[in-house]
């Protein structure tokens, strides 16, 4: 790992960076270190930042309809049905077979509680404290700790199912079912499920992206007041912290962390408002594509249970369920928009949680999980394959959109690393020897795409460490069970 970090010697030391992130005045500091958030237009040395995105589907795949026959088949032949939608961008995709998941003993009875929570952590929960959250910081949050200070949002977490599933496997905390991002070993990061709320968050409550200059002045004063107010409250919280026991102090630390992130965000909004550049136009060069337009359906996710994850659109005289694929695509669009406008550089997107969505548009209403213990049942196998295909299609939709957006010398996809995958090899036997996943994007020229590497020996932690390395994130320790960088995946 160390070796790859020295390659990027222009990066500031991580510790310095983390220290900087804690302070409200972090941004000028970063600017002084050459991390200007807003580079001079047309500055030659400036390279678009690398974006890192993860998209999840539970329960694994029908393996023989997912993996190409061999390396040659990936390049030339029609792709297997589940990944056929990636054909137009196959030269910018990378498939790697042979990545094993973390062995889940002693939680053998909890495959679904762990498939999502170990996916980006490559770490098992602490068995002795399993009823609360004790796992590892996830790869996306490691990245967010490093690059998150450069953007208005350190990271974006999306889902299309509420994270409220209650089922107890092996005594594990129920939140392990529905969370993939962990800001610290004890802090699951919630995801947003409502596209409207996501959009408002990206553009701070405004219907249109860019702020109107007319009220920018007022907003800016309010923002400055908010920041001072939070500073006061922060001081009070520190005082409270001193009067509490150790475990309570950890909770206050989470609060302090949240307030600091909020202050940083307000500072970033203030500056954009001051520059009249809320959509990050200054960061895009003349040749770059304009920001994509996203049609946000007005409505909400209906039902009290997570399985009721259909989005219901409100219109003049009533409510209509939109297709699951349509709902999933809006979240894809929002990810692309957030990346394009450089509002964040790190995202996770839980396409569905392991309790299983249903996909009526495929012609059957069964929940995903109910079909995955298929044995040799062809009907179920076909249904699962259809669900797999639909999920990869949404990912393909997202990365193709990115491939069509010009940025710098290439496209947004060229400057990104997008991973689609599952935490189980297959849902029938819960195996984890060959995790299914696809990488799309060149990571600014670090990822060696257009290939299918058929026989890598590595694990989930190695994979995550490799992707972060490719994204220029220096690591001071392996991720979870990882031990190495998988150099075959990288250029040079």
């Amino acid at each position: 790992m160390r070796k790859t970090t020295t390659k990027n010697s222009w990066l500031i030391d991580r510790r310095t960076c983390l220290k900087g992130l804690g302070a409200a005045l972090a941004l000028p500091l970063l600017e002084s270190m050459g991390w200007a958030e807003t580079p001079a237009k047309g500055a030659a040395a400036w390279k678009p930042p690398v974006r890192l995105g993860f998209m999840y589907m539970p329960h694994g795949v029908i393996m023989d309809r997912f993996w190409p026959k061999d390396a040659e088949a990936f390049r030339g032949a029609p792709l297997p049905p589940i990944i056929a939608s990636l054909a137009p961008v196959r030269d910018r995709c990378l498939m790697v077979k042979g990545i094993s998941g973390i062995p889940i003993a002693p939680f053998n009875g909890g495959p679904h509680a762990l498939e999502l929570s170990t996916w980006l952590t490559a770490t098992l929960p602490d068995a002795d404290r399993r009823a609360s959250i004790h796992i590892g910081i996830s790869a996306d949050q490691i990245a967010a700790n490093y690059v998150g200070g450069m953007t208005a949002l350190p990271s974006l977490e999306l889902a299309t199912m509420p994270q409220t599933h209650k089922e107890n496997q092996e005594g594990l905390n129920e939140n392990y079912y529905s969370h993939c991002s962990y800001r610290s070993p004890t802090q699951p990061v919630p995801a947003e499920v409502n596209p409207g709320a996501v959009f408002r968050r990206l553009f701070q409550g405004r219907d249109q992206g860019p702020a109107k200059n007319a009220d920018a002045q007022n907003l800016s004063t309010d923002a400055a007041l908010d920041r001072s107010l939070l500073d006061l409250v922060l001081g009070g919280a520190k005082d409270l912290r001193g009067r509490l026991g150790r475990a309570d102090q950890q909770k206050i630390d989470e609060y302090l962390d949240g307030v600091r992130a909020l202050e940083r965000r307000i500072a970033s909004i203030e500056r954009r408002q001051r520059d009249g550049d809320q959509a990050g136009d200054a960061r895009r060069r003349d040749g770059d594509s304009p920001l994509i337009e996203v049609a946000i359906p007005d409505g909400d996710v209906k039902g009290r249970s997570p399985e009721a994850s259909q989005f219901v659109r409100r219109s003049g005289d009533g409510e209509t369920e939109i297709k699951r694929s349509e709902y999933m695509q809006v979240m894809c669009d929002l990810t692309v928009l957030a990346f394009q406008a450089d509002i964040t550089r790190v995202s996770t997107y839980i396409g569905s949680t392991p309790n299983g969505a249903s996909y009526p548009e495929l012609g059957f209403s069964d929940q995903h999980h109910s079909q995955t213990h298929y044995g040799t049942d062809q009907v179920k196998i076909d249904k699962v394959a259809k669900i797999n295909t639909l999920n990869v299609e949404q990912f393909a939709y997202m990365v193709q959109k990115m491939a069509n957006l010009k940025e710098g010398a290439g496209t947004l996809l060229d400057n990104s690393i997008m991973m689609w995958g599952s935490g189980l090899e297959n849902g029938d036997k819960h195996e984890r020897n060959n995790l299914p996943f696809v990488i799309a994007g060149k990571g600014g020229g670090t990822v060696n795409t257009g290939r299918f590497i058929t026989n890598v020996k590595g694990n989930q932690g190695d994979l995550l460490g490799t992707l972060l390395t490719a994204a220029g994130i220096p690591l001071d320790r392996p991720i979870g069970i990882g031990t190495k960088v998988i150099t075959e995946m990288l250029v040079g």
Partner: protein
Amino acid sequence: MSRPLTVSRVLVGTFLAGLTSTLVLQASDAAPGVPTTQAQAQEIFTKQVKPFLETYCSDCHGEKKSKGEFTYRYAIKYAGSPAFRQLWNHAAASVKAEDMPPEKEKKKPTAVERTMFSDWVAGMKYLSPKDPGQFVIRRLSKIEYGNTLRDLFGVDPRAAAILPDEVFGAGYSNSLSPLLMEQYLLVANSVLDQVFAKAGQPPTAVEQRIFTARPGNGVDERAAAQKIANDLARRAYRRPVSAAELQVLLSAFDLGKKHGRDFRESVRLVVKAVLVSPQFIFITPVSDDEPKPGVVALDDHQLAARLSYFLWATMPDAELMALADQGRLRDPTVLAAQTRRLLSDTRSRALFDGFGAQWLGIDKLAGKTFDPDKFPEMTPSLRQSMYDEARLLFDSIVREDRSVRTFVEADYTFADAKLGALFYGMKIDGEGMQRVKLTNANRGGILTMPGVLATTSFPNRTSPVNRGVWVLEHVLGEHVPPAPANVPALEKQDQSKVATLTLRQRTELHRTDPVCNNCHKILDPIGFGLENFDAIGRWRERDESGGAVDASGELPGKQRFSTPQELKRIIVARLDDLCHNLTGRMLAYALCRQLEGYDEIVVDGLVSNIAKDGHRMQNLVVAVVTSYPFMNRRIGDLPGAGNEKNDNKK
């Protein structure tokens, strides 16, 4: 909530245990049985369990080895620690099922030794030191936060709707993320916009209530602001406000003045500061001292908040606060009276929405998929009525202080016109849900309630197995292990051979396999006993195949039944198990954590008290509220609790 009480990883059905206990005793007269005191558990541990482990297990799972990633190396040092409960249960299950030691080992324990070991594990709760559990300051849940805003500012609790939905109760994640913090600020802004009238408009009623002082008549602005801040923060923080805390709020006022805001706008900043403070977002203790590790009693205000959020999912009202101020709330008589008062208030509906619905699993009904061709009736509005039926039954048992057995054998229910026509063959006049007397004893109670029956079904048919599991887990509190992976579903059976069989006959086919039969001999009869109810809970005489429903069955112990009514009678005979299950789940919900170790002894004690007075529901809730873990908290680790292992790791 689904399994707060870890009884065992294997199905230790009391049906089964009841049947076999005499046999076991005869066969194992050398085994000491389940220990019932700490001394006994300790003695058996030293004299028998340790040598047992040394003889049969240490080669693979002892001090140096952890084959299969399993070692008792740490557990043996802290045998009574709740941290290792799962580990011992796992070990006992493997030993009991003769999975361990493996076939190839020469040294194998005798049946007597195996029984000794699993009995000891069953009784090891008695090794747990007296411990109320660690109580970490708790963030308000989304629901609680919305309700608290309503009570403080008269706003619609949906002001909190932008917060992410979350698991609540025992599996609740007490953590805070930057996203949440951002949303708290957004919510604060929208609340302020509702509370403070726009410039030029007359002040809102809430605004007038907030301004408990005005400058003038010798009162300067800052003094008025101080009174306002103190009065508001006292309610919002649910406890007296310290001088330092008040100072922070006054600084917010000063900040406004410094930026040229007028008195009113500066007070607005104070309110905002309150709303984003950790003292509002978390329930925090009042103490001014740095706490020392150990067990302490909850202070009166913390107790008031815990009680109020448990039963109402909102902040304490004036009466509770006044009792806390007077230091009287910890008086058991006062606390019990307050519990009953809160239960009889309509706000206690929160107890069903937060707890009851999860207990029954009926919170899943709204989002459950049903085949629209087969069950076009399952509209959102019907589902809502089905949910309300369960809610009103629960409420009636609570408010009328009925026996817990009413949950199984109620002779009344609640129905509107739709429910009446579809499920009860009754014509119900008037608007909305009404209480109705049931004459058909096959109906009534949670076992045969449409909402519950529908919750356990597949989209297109009933699942007798799911219904059996539901009764065992949700009603009787047993743990049913998941089916081994790769079990063929019914649909996989040779269709030509089973086409003429009823679902029951088809399900019974799998019981010829002894591996399956072990659990299914208990699960299936219960499910079959409910086969007269279709997948959404309507009465039927014939199932989908057209064959007549055979709802008769026999449970271990030669307990025969032939109708749902008779099945209910068998279930209600296990009233203590029902009561134990309900009490345990409710305690876990009240504490916002899973139960472990010493909690199990607490529940045993509560249940025996509840039983003495007719299993009355309000007594049950009072017992939970006045229990040791509810009224006390542990700060830091207990010495020797087994967590040293983790601390050394860091």
